[in-house]
């Protein structure tokens, strides 16, 4: 119980630190982004400048001086940003509530809240990542175990070279090569996911997603197997393995009950971390296969100078990264009670 309490205090400390880190990052990015000029011709090319300026004024980002619109000081904008976040103001003309996160102009020329842009993008991103994990985690672990058991035999050497090669090649190369092969084979599989009209969890959608899932899985499988092999070979040579064999366990029993469990201690948090990053998606894969996911939104906000959307997605990525790191760290203490997170020097 005392351990759990220690873990709780440690978690609380880390969460407070995380919030502070996040606010600092948000502030830096906010200032840098708001320093950019707000020219409707560049930022919102499809929008009527009058509507654009009106919304900017009601959001407190611009003021009208002698018929020209100038940006308000960044410190005022910053204060307004936080008040809007918790208590959005009412648009004086339409009587509707203003968006908490500003407006995206590239997705909808009439202005749309980044929140509404993001939410429908989650299903494809999550689905592809989950499929990829379902593929890669078991295959990767099994390969790693096999390599560790055949350590320094030809099977291990051959697989190690293969893993090395697969891990080095960037995933967009797989994506491109898979598409080339797909076209060369006369397109038995759809090369683009966007055109499929089927519910998200269905067999048609699964078939359409096979290529991106494969492109994502190669690297992960190689990564898991290399990591598992390294951990397991280390555990297999420990003294307690010898003891387990001496007390009469078969090689299989000793490997599964003692070695594999212990080698999972660093592997499990790694899988957990990957699971959290499922939300952020892969920009490259989504771009190559035209998947309308989170990564594609981010790319769109970058290329089309959609600042509010960019800040929103960028901060979303930051939160994912921070939370992921925190959960991975905490899970070490939960998976293996011998590890005391945040413990002193003793």
């Amino acid at each position: 119980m005392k351990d759990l309490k220690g873990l709780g205090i440690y978690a609380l400390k880390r969460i407070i630190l995380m919030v502070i880190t996040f606010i600092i990052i948000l502030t830096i990015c906010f200032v840098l982004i708001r320093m950019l000029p707000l020219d409707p011709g560049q930022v919102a090319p499809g929008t009527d400048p009058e509507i654009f300026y009106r919304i900017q004024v009601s959001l407190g980002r611009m003021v009208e001086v002698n018929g020209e619109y100038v940006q308000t000081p960044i410190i005022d904008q910053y204060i307004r940003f936080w008040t809007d976040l918790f208590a959005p103001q009412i648009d004086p003309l339409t009587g509707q509530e203003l968006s908490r996160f500003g407006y995206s102009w590239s997705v909808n020329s009439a202005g749309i809240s980044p929140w509404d842009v993001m939410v429908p993008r989650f299903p494809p991103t999550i689905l592809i990542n989950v499929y990829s994990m379902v593929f890669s985690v078991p295959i990767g672990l099994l390969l790693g175990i096999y390599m560790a058991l055949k350590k320094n035999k030809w099977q291990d050497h051959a697989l190690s070279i293969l893993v090395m090669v697969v891990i080095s090649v960037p995933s967009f190369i797989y994506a491109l090569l898979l598409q080339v092969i797909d076209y060369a084979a006369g397109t038995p599989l759809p090369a683009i996911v966007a055109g499929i009209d089927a519910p998200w969890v269905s067999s048609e959608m699964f078939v359409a997603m096979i290529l991106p899932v494969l492109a994502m899985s190669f690297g992960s499988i190689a990564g898991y197997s290399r990591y598992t092999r390294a951990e397991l070979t280390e555990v297999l040579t420990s003294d307690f393995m010898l003891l387990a064999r001496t007390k009469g366990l078969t090689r299989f029993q000793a490997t599964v009950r003692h070695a594999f469990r212990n080698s999972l201690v660093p592997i499990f948090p790694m899988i957990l971390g990957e699971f959290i990053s499922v939300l952020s998606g892969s920009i490259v894969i989504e771009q190559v296969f035209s998947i309308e996911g989170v990564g594609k939104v981010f790319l769109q906000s970058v290329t089309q100078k959609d600042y509010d959307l960019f800040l929103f997605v960028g901060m979303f990525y930051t939160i994912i990264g921070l939370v992921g790191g925190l959960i991975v760290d905490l899970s070490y203490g939960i998976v293996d009670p011998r590890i005391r997170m945040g413990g002193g020097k003793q």
Partner: protein
Amino acid sequence: MKLNFKNLFKKKPHHEFVEFNDLNIEKTYSTSDIKKEDFNFTQLNESIHDLKFETKPISYFKDCFLRFAKNKASIVAACVIGILVLYAIIVPAVDPKSNVPASVNQNGYQDSYYANVIPKAFENSGFWDGTEIRDVGESVYKVYDAVDQEQGVERKRIKEVVDKFFQGVTAPNGQVISGSTMYRVRYDTYAVGNIQAFRISNSDYQRILDYQEEHDVTILMPLVDYETYVNVEYRQKLEEQGVSSSTIESRLTSIRQYYVNGKGNYWFKLERVEGSSGNAFVPVGYDNNALEDIYLRDSEGNLVYSTPADSNNLNVRVNYEHYFEFKYGFEPTFLFGTTNGGRDIWTRLAEGARFSLLLGIGVSVVNFIIGIIWGSIAGYYGGRVDLTMERITDIISAIPSIVILNIVNTHFPGNNVLGLIVALILPGWIGTASLTRMQFYRFKGQEYVLASRTLGARDTRLIFKHIFPNAIGTLVTSSVLMIPSVIFSESSLTFLGIINLGEMVSVGSLLDEGQKSMTTFPHAVLFPALLISLLMISFNLFGNGLRDAFNTTLRGADN
């Protein structure tokens, strides 16, 4: 039983004792037996020194090198890296395709007539010779063959007919509804043929004439005049066939367009035939082997080679392959083929590799320097300094680098490379810094450091003389492993189009370019993909080999 055991135990010492006694009895010496002459001095007038090692000492780095040399995969990887670096340095410097002067082409070599040609290394070998297998219909085959029959055409479009087959649509009952003869031919993508309506200046015309004489080749070909044929003869033919006047106009437009698409290669009369699988244009008199030319002739019936376009320029028809040699000074042979835009992949790839390598190494060096300075300060002083510095790195590492990249890019819209470098350096040094910090924590408490401190060594001496040399191997290895990750980030960003390099080229932008024509010309993607994979694999293998070599805990493990 008890007695027996006792005897067993006692036997040995007893025996030894006896032996010892025997020795003593048999060999007894007295000092008087030793003669003085039997002794001599080892040294009398010289002092004793430690002798020099007769073998050469093995330094730390030599030891590492010896262990690195045992790792065959790393040696191969190092060789591959060496070859790629040489390729990236030599090819852009030496290859004429990379050094086309701005007076010939503004932005280096680019030729739209040779766009999307297939890689060619061995002429006429059937493999890697710029030819591909294509299935063409009968009418297209006839046109191609007729083009090849023109006087003075050396490079034939159709290298050989591999197969001739009937492709038909069959009804469910097995009856052939419609179909046509197809030719499976080996098509030479380098056969661009003769280009018409080519505008050159009078002085260039003179230079071409000189070049023709000097090199004994034919560049200038007789001009083709399809307008006269279409407007007079073909119209008359259609009228005789009783085609209505409105249909005639549309027929004339379509045949004119067909001649335009031929870019001047169709030197013969064409006519429309109605086949079983649609209408097509075929050469007049092809089947009787009597093609009729439509060359432009002057009043005396001589072939015309140029017509004035305006006061300074002439319209000509050129054999483009020879004209290409005249214009650029090298043959149109592309080892890796060309891109959609007509750029040579072999040289572009070398330039891309040069950019990627330069960026990778440069960024890694900067990251290494910042990282070791930051990490040494944090690791050596520890305590509150360390805590503060750690929080700063925490914050920097939590910012997604792509956010920084985009912010820098929008602040400096003209130069995307600056944003790329900032985005790669800003989070890049943190890994080296934390590694350095760890190494400092590891070594700074050790006895030899304490001893040196007790003797009065200053901080700088402790850091640079005692701690740092111990950590250098690990740190160098980590910065070598940083190079592939930098190249990976750079190529992803340029591939996605987030970074626009403008005139510069990287492997990522080549992949992006190749992706556009990927479905029909996969070579434009395959070669850049191959290069970047090779680069990443060999850098990773090389770095891993270095890591194992520098890892002192593994010393002697494999012996």
